[in-house]
């Protein structure tokens, strides 16, 4: 219908049309990649964690004399249990997202060349209950297993049982039932898998790699209260956490004058770990929003100039019987055509940019649906920003055509 006259009119205004196409193409390419980066980071923020995140607080006691651990730890545990509101207390070597990684190499068969790097959590009695681990299959540790667990000289567990996460079970024995299998350490120790729990995050994600495969490769070992485990985990109702941390740090600091005592809720640990990522999300969103606004203003600017230049032509059309809707439709269609060309070029650019980033940076490939999604966004943006100039075009009175200018 109107396409042919629109095209021939665009051919007369090559440079402004090219500018709109270029602007749409660049905005589309940047938008695609920025949206993809945002969504990847939102995935990180939402990383699920199979423990009671909102009820757990951690009191870290560092710098105590190692030889006094045997007496001090039971006393400290008792002091923590005595604080009103505390539901359970245990010791552990590390916690998710604390960057305090204790990694051991394990393999599903003895003597493999490439053991799987595994984050080891050592828990003392009732540690499973304190952390709120969600048992999926099998069992948790018995009192005997807790009492007999020791830390070897190279920081591995002395013992024979292990509880592993769901993802780790799938990694080690993809085709078999992991329950009852044996895990072999590089130094020749072996541990039987007695239980499988819901995925718990490792102490440290390799934040820059974008590869989250190892995030859940964790194994839990039972341990007696020994030196080297310096995180007291306290579980309570969420509302009691601040008071309990205050009282607990005070109590432990008094009993351990030589130690550095620090208390935090697990929620605070998680927030601190992901603070950089959530900032990046805000930054990227801001850039996207500003860019869309800038692009919209660009389209408005060029289109209004355009409309003004063609007032006479519009007047003639109106005088010859075109109704307002037809004039409006003309400019909307014109913008749609330009945006479509821009979007096609932009999708190519977006793909090329993603490809470059994929090869040179730790970025994954963009799923295909980002391309059509940002194309739709560009169409909507184009139609909305041309609406104003188009309406002002449609209100040009036919009398304009009769005047000399």
């Amino acid at each position, binding site marked *: 219908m109107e396409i042919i006259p629109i095209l021939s009119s665009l051919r007369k205004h090559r440079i402004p049309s090219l*500018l709109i196409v270029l*602007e749409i193409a660049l905005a589309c390419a940047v938008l695609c990649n920025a949206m993809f980066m945002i969504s990847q980071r939102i995935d990180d923020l939402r990383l699920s964690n199979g423990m009671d995140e909102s009820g757990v607080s951690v009191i870290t006691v*560092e710098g105590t004399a190692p030889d006094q651990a045997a007496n001090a730890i039971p006393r400290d545990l008792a002091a923590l249990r005595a604080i009103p509101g505390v539901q359970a207390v245990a010791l552990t070597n590390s916690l998710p997202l604390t960057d305090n990684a204790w990694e051991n190499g394990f393999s599903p068969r003895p003597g493999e060349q490439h053991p799987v790097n595994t984050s080891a959590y050592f828990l003392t009695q009732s540690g499973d209950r304190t952390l709120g681990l969600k048992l999926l299959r099998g069992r948790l540790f018995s009192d005997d297993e807790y009492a007999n667990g020791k830390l070897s000289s190279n920081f591995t567990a002395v013992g024979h049982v292990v509880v592993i996460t769901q993802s780790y079970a799938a990694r080690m024995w993809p085709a078999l039932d992991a329950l009852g299998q044996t895990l072999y350490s590089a130094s020749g120790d072996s541990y039987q898998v007695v239980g499988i729990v819901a995925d718990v995050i490792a102490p440290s994600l390799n934040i820059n790699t974008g590869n989250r495969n190892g995030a859940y490769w964790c194994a839990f070992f039972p341990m007696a209260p020994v030196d080297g485990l310096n995180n007291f985990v306290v579980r309570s109702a969420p509302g009691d956490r601040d008071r309990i941390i205050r009282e607990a740090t005070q109590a432990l*600091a008094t009993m351990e004058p030589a130690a550095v005592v620090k208390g935090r809720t697990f929620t605070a640990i998680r927030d601190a770990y992901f603070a950089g990522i959530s*900032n990046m999300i805000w930054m990227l969103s801001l850039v996207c929003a500003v860019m869309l606004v800038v692009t919209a203003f*660009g389209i408005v600017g060029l289109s*209004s100039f355009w409309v003004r230049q063609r007032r006479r032509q519009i007047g003639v059309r109106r005088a010859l019987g075109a109704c307002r809707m037809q004039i409006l439709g003309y400019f909307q269609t014109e913008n749609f055509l330009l945006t479509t060309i821009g979007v096609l070029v932009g999708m190519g650019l977006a793909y090329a940019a993603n490809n470059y*980033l994929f090869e040179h940076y*730790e970025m994954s490939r963009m799923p295909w649906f980002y391309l059509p999604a940002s194309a739709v966004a560009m169409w909507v943006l184009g139609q909305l920003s041309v609406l104003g100039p188009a309406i002002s075009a449609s209100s040009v009175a036919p009398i304009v055509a009769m005047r000399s200018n």
Partner: protein
Amino acid sequence: MIGYYINLAGRSLRSHKVLTALMVMTLGLGIGACITTLTVLKLLSGDPLPEKNGQLFYPQVDPFPADRLAAAHNKPPPIMTYTDAMNLVSARKARHQAAVALVSAKVMPQGTGAQALTQRPFFSDGVIATADFFSMFDVPFKYGSGWSAADDQNRAPVAVIADTLNNRLFGGGDSIGRTIRINDRDFRIVGVTKAWAPQPRFYAQELGGRSYGDGDGVFVPLGSALAAGMSPQQVNCFADSDVSKLETASCTWLGVWVELGTPDEVTAYRDFLGNYAQQQISLGRFHRSTIALTELGQWLRDKHVVPDDVRLQTWLAFGFLLVCVVNAVGLLLAKCLRRSNEIGVRRALGATWREIFTQFMVEAGMVGLVGGLMGLVFTELGLWCIRNQPAQYAGLAHLDLEMFLVTFFFSAAVGLIAGVLPAWRACVVSPAPQLKAA
């Protein structure tokens, strides 16, 4: 003439205030985003020790057992065992050589009386190293100096502390000879450094420390630290071993740095390292002869010290600037073409196309410069935001003179580039039809 054009441009810009504001803001945002990310990128990828550029090298050897690879592609492990590190340091084949590890040092303030009871111990970032650390890395001293090789040998309980720690513990006075209690042992202070915090903190790579931020607080001789039972931040064991006896354990935990002045010295050191690996193979300690000797700058690139996010942000900022420039070109063009009548009249009255071109370039340049000023404001705003982020490098994000000048010329250039197309379109306007239409 230029003065007249500036006057004209000023009038024209003032007469379309909204359009002018839009162009200036657009360019300002684009320039601001670019300069902010470039400043951060420049800070993070800087040379930590410019005066030793190209002279510091990081050797690696491979002590892993035959059935275990240290890393993909048969590369040697990133850090060394105590045995290898000490062999390389005591061989003294380079101008300077030092073995380094990081510790978390618990420092006990030594107040008196009631003060002592209320003061709690605190952790300070610590370096344990051999004597050459200070001379090789040009650490500046406020009082005293580093320890001697003899102190390394005798495992003397001496320490060097940083200015900041000296202020906190001793009120900034000359504390040479005084005692500092680190990890419940007494050390005698032999030196106080001036503020020293190379960015990136290159020697901390692979040793379990952060890459940017404040300098270290405490420096202790490697042997003395082991005698005092300090344990390094990063210990990677490749065989069953007792981690409490780090001197003999099959664990890597030390980084070694050497200073080599000339290419000949580098070649000689590489040969020495190759021979060392061969010799260790014949002794049965090593199973692979792979070695590496990497220059500091290359080592930092290999280790991806600059976070990928920062580079991605820079790319994104340039994409954004491009959108902004195209937008400014569009708006300038629209404005230009709207003034076709005026141009026609000027041309008819004798202005050459060159003069028209200059006039419009002056206008575009002014938009660029004002946009640049806005860009400077946006840059300061952006850097302020970064300083308030929880990143390690947050505190470093300041605009320096160099980047300030870059911003200025950059924005003028951006303005002129954006102006070329509209100015060209303006000067090819033929006078006759315009006059007729008017």
